């Protein structure tokens, strides 16, 4: 009896030792990969930061309105956020590569999915940035054109254009990430349709006065202004 127990314990201990001997080199490999990954990710972060500073990415981001969003969220500059993010993703990628070496059942499939997801994440981020940049540029262009054409409510027009472009960009981002694709598509359709319908109703019914004023400004003049020139030749 005693001999049997000792035998079983010895076998169990040997099993644990074998398992430990089996896993230990893999853990060491994981640590090494993690360390190498940290170094590579850090170098990548420094390189990316230098490149972004060289191309004045912060200025671009400021123009896009992304810097203001980051500032409101208490985050550092766009260059810093993007380099830290790249560092994080790169290091996580290496760690997951190391984890896959452990040979844990079921984990490898998840890791493969993560690696397939990373490019889509970057594409989504790129789309979001371009969307914000486009929204900022076109809303400012509309605002300036409206002010110089003496149209009513220029800021409203600028904001409407900004919102539509941002919603459009977000729906594209969600589609790329595969997150709530149908919901976003429906939401975009509803928002876009609502804005257009709202504008049509506002201009047709609610804004009769504004429409009249706009048309008068555009094509005619009041009695007081008869014989007066709107502006002089600038050149």
């Amino acid at each position: 009896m005693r001999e049997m127990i000792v035998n079983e314990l010895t076998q169990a201990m040997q099993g644990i030792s074998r398992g430990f001997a089996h896993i230990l080199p893999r853990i060491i490999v994981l640590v090494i990969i993690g360390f190498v990954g940290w170094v590579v990710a850090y170098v990548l972060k420094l390189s990316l930061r230098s490149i972004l500073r060289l191309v004045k990415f912060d200025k671009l981001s400021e123009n896009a309105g992304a810097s203001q969003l980051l500032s409101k969220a208490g985050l550092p500059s766009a260059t810093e956020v993007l380099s830290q993010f790249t560092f994080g993703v790169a290091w996580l990628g290496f760690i997951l590569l190391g984890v896959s070496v452990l040979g844990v059942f079921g984990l490898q499939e998840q890791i493969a999915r993560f690696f397939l997801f990373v490019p889509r994440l970057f594409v989504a981020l790129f789309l979001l940035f371009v969307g914000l940049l486009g929204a900022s540029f076109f809303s400012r262009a509309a605002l300036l054109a409206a002010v110089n054409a003496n149209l009513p409510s220029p800021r409203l027009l600028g904001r409407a254009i900004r919102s539509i472009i941002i919603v459009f960009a977000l729906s594209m981002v969600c589609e790329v990430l595969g997150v709530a694709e149908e919901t976003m598509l429906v939401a975009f359709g509803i928002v876009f349709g609502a804005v257009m319908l709202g504008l049509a109703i506002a201009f047709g019914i609610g804004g009769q006065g504004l429409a009249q004023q706009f048309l008068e400004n555009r094509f005619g003049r009041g009695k007081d202004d008869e014989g007066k020139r709107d502006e002089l030749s600038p050149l």
Partner: protein
Amino acid sequence: MKNARAADDSILTDEFLRQLINVGEVDILVGLPTHNNAKTIGPIVATIQAGLLAFFPRDRAAIINADGGSQDGTTELVLNAAIDDVRRGSKISALRTLHVISTQYAASPTRGTALRSILAAGELLRAKTSVVISPESTQVETDWLTKLVRPIYAGEFDLVLPTYSRHRFDGILLTNLLYPMTRALYGLRIREPYALDFAFSGTLGSQFLAQNAWQDETARAGSETYFTLNAIASRARICQSFLGTREHIERRSADLIPALRQTVGALFSSLGPHMALWNASTASQPIPTTGPEREFTLEPLRVNRKRLREMFSTGVAELESVFQAILSPSTLEELRRIARLEETEFRYPAELWVKTIYEFAVAYHKTVISRDHILQALAPLFRGRAFTFLAENRNGSADGVEDNIEALCLEFERGKPYLLELWNGTQ
């Protein structure tokens, strides 16, 4: 060899080149950059022909029409303007053939491309002097040609710019921004830096043609201003010639933004490449001028001043987010303050105007936002300044208007250290 280079790189079509080769060489080339100018072009061509017959009967001359895709028969009018009609009315006959060539350089007009075509033609024809006449002028006189060409023919100057007799409120962008700022920065009192009627030597034309600025959108839009500024930078010998009354087709209010691009855009973008020049320049000097530097006519003119002020106030209120990127907080605060003033009290002081312009110039140089947006944002502020200029000179004499412009010029000169501080980033 020189001709071959021009032909190689040029934008000239084969047909245009063939016509130019048939002409040979000329002494005087008259360039007409047109686009839908059927209303004015006929009399202008007739006047040019009469001017050439009267003042240059022994010289070889060609009229080159660079057209930007006119749909109203402008080119046909140019080509059909027969010199025989002019000869019949004149007792003088030309000893040489006067060639008239029309080419369409593009389907849509671009001032820079039109000027480039004329310059390339001038180089190919080895023109001693080239003259550009604006097709928008409704009153071109026969003696304009001799006034513009003679100083270059005499070998005394490379560029002859015009001065005109204008209404005191005509060309407010020139009198309130372009002239004073060019004068303050480059030290030359050039009254019309954006010249539409001007003449230049073959050497200066070739020099301008050879530069790489043609790919730049701003340079193409404001090629006339660029031409003047480049002549200043290359130390060309510049003079002015008084041409008389400048009558031109009425411009619409919508033309302000293109006008800003053609003039202020070109001036602002020249600051970077010519920094060493304007940094070294101190006080301004007059340049040789034939006739008066400027004449003002004073007939009454009803202008919708209320609209100008309203558009200024609306602009300041609505474009605050844009101005925050361009202007300093103190300038923006001051603009907000004057925007709240009643019409009777409203004034956009010269000092504040100069500060605003210099801050805009630096923002443009640093591209804080899209450069075109910076120019568009200037439009409502310019309207505020135009309102003030109208108010200050409503009952003024010609001398009073001139004094007002002179005071603004001096303000621009005084403000130059502020521009340098901003430029060098110490403010």
